[in-house]
């Protein structure tokens, strides 16, 4: 391949990369920032490295379940109780000594994450946003 063609190829690839980057950064899909309480929860989530076992939108480790929409299964304050239960340590989930404020923050974080979309193709029966069997619109997961 001649040097001129190499330059063209690299130029083309660089343009693609910057185009893709621009596309991602200018994504028009509306998103909602976290509330103050949920932001505290996000910090607790990171400080305890919950994502080493859990995923949000499929991102994270796989020892535990995806938690994007766990709040949908525990509406209202039920999630707080459920969190208190699991954070005490279950079969494979270790015990985390978190205070009430941290737990409430985590619950707020998971509740707000739940409102952003569907973390897995099918997380619950219809009402929580899952698809009916045989209906998997491939380009549209939200």
């Amino acid at each position, binding site marked *: 391949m001649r040097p001129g063609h190499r330059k063209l190829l690299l130029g083309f690839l660089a343009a693609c990369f910057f185009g893709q980057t621009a*596309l991602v950064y200018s994504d028009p899909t509306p998103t909602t920032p*976290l509330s103050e309480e949920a932001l505290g929860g996000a910090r607790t989530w990171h400080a305890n490295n919950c994502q080493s076992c859990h*995923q949000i939108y499929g991102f994270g480790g796989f020892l535990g379940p995806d938690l994007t929409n766990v709040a949908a299964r525990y509406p209202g304050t039920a999630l707080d109780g459920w969190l208190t239960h699991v954070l005490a340590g279950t079969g494979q989930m270790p015990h985390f000594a978190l205070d009430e404020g941290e737990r409430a923050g985590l619950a707020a974080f998971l509740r707000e994450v739940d409102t952003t979309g569907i973390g897995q193709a099918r997380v619950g029966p219809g009402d929580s946003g899952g698809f009916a069997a045989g209906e998997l619109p491939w380009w549209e997961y939200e």
Partner: protein
Amino acid sequence: MTVPAPAADQVSRRYATLTFVRGALAALMVALAVGLLSALYSVPALGESMRKLGIQFTALRPLHTIFASAWIFLGGMAVVHRFLQEEGGPLKPGERLRLRGQVLLWAFAGLGILITLPLGITSGREYMGHHPLLSIPIFAGWLLFCWNYFGIAGRGFWQRPVYVMMWAVGSLFFVYTFTEQHAYLLPGVFGDPVVDRQIQWKACGTLVGSFNLFVYGTAIFLGEKITGDKSYGQSRTAWALLGIGLLNSFTNYTHHTYHLPQSHLVKWIGFCVSMTELLILLKVVGELSALVRAESEGGRTETAAGRCVTRILLGSAKWWTAAMLVSSILISVPPLNALVHGTYVVTGHAMGTTIGIDTMILLAAMSWLLRERPSTEVGVRKPVDCKQICRTAIGLNIAAGALAFWLHFAGLVDGVTRYLHPVGAGQAFAYRPAWLQASIGPVFAICGLALFGFFVMLLRRWVPVAFAPFDPEMLGEPVSGWPLEQSPEEREDPSGIPAC
């Protein structure tokens, strides 16, 4: 078989290559040890005992992924320094200073990560689980490397073989993606979980693209060195592969984001580009059959026989490429993606590619680099490549194959069960069939143990060669796979592959 005596200024460059070989092998050993512990952790009873001992999965997993990536980058970097050994000329004082700086900064970062993560100091991020302050020495080290690399490779850049370009783009990509991985430090990104994930997935895609470029460059450089044929690095196909591979590396991560609320255009592009991977697949399979044909026609030469481990490792990387492209195409087809995403299929794919493709190519490169060490320096002739080691390489592939297969299989079962029996409101988390729940951890651990065992068998031979003290005075015959004083006729084995 005597290496031409290198010029005095070559000694430092030779030492640089060796330093990166050592660093790479050390990182691999850490990754393997914590990888094995993480796999054992997935057996509930063992996880329980490990927690009692204070061993936490929250430290193991980031240690594993960080050191696995470090192994890939350092291994690639060792080969880059082997290239600089030939191209660089005398090591200038500034260059030497930057090289030392790079090594010291990275050693500091590596030790820092090894100490802080078990203490629970973490960023809590995927792949970049270390405290962000430790990113500073890593980043600074990369800049120093880029300075040195471009100082040499930049001369006559556009005429150079494709691997020079691959390493160049790989390094720039790394600098970019590493910065992007830290976007979460901006409050606007951290405070918006969707935006955070959009950026994080994009950055991870580029990160994988970056280390792939290091590895592909390594494979082509190695091929050129072994065959002595310099044309491949200049060929149109090699450049086309660079183009398609690169395009893929910054768009095909989107198969992880089909479900993320974001512009459909990004998903469409990702889907279409992913499909071009088929082209690479066809290409790879084509080259593979050509390789096999050439080998059966040409018979085994003495040198080829002495390189059995290099050949086996490189050959297996090709089969892994084919297998993993099938797996990646499956992940890219949206309805299948919906089924398997967020399950162990992703781990199977990630480890399948990093072990099957990247690690196999890098191990082949290590075998080649280690064989170059003068035997006088290593003290005794320690075999790097012999019959038992070749068998180990085959065992390594089988164990890795079993691990990757199990992860794909378990993930697929999880995905199908999750689809057929969704967990309803107020229900507990169990979506996994009981037989899988009972077997997933133990089988993972057993496959992991087997893989670990084969790695140990291999490294037991190589590590003493790599870590034998460097002696700038020692030149001469390279360490070889078999006693050099024996002629092929004297060897008992007609295949020419020596016993260890």
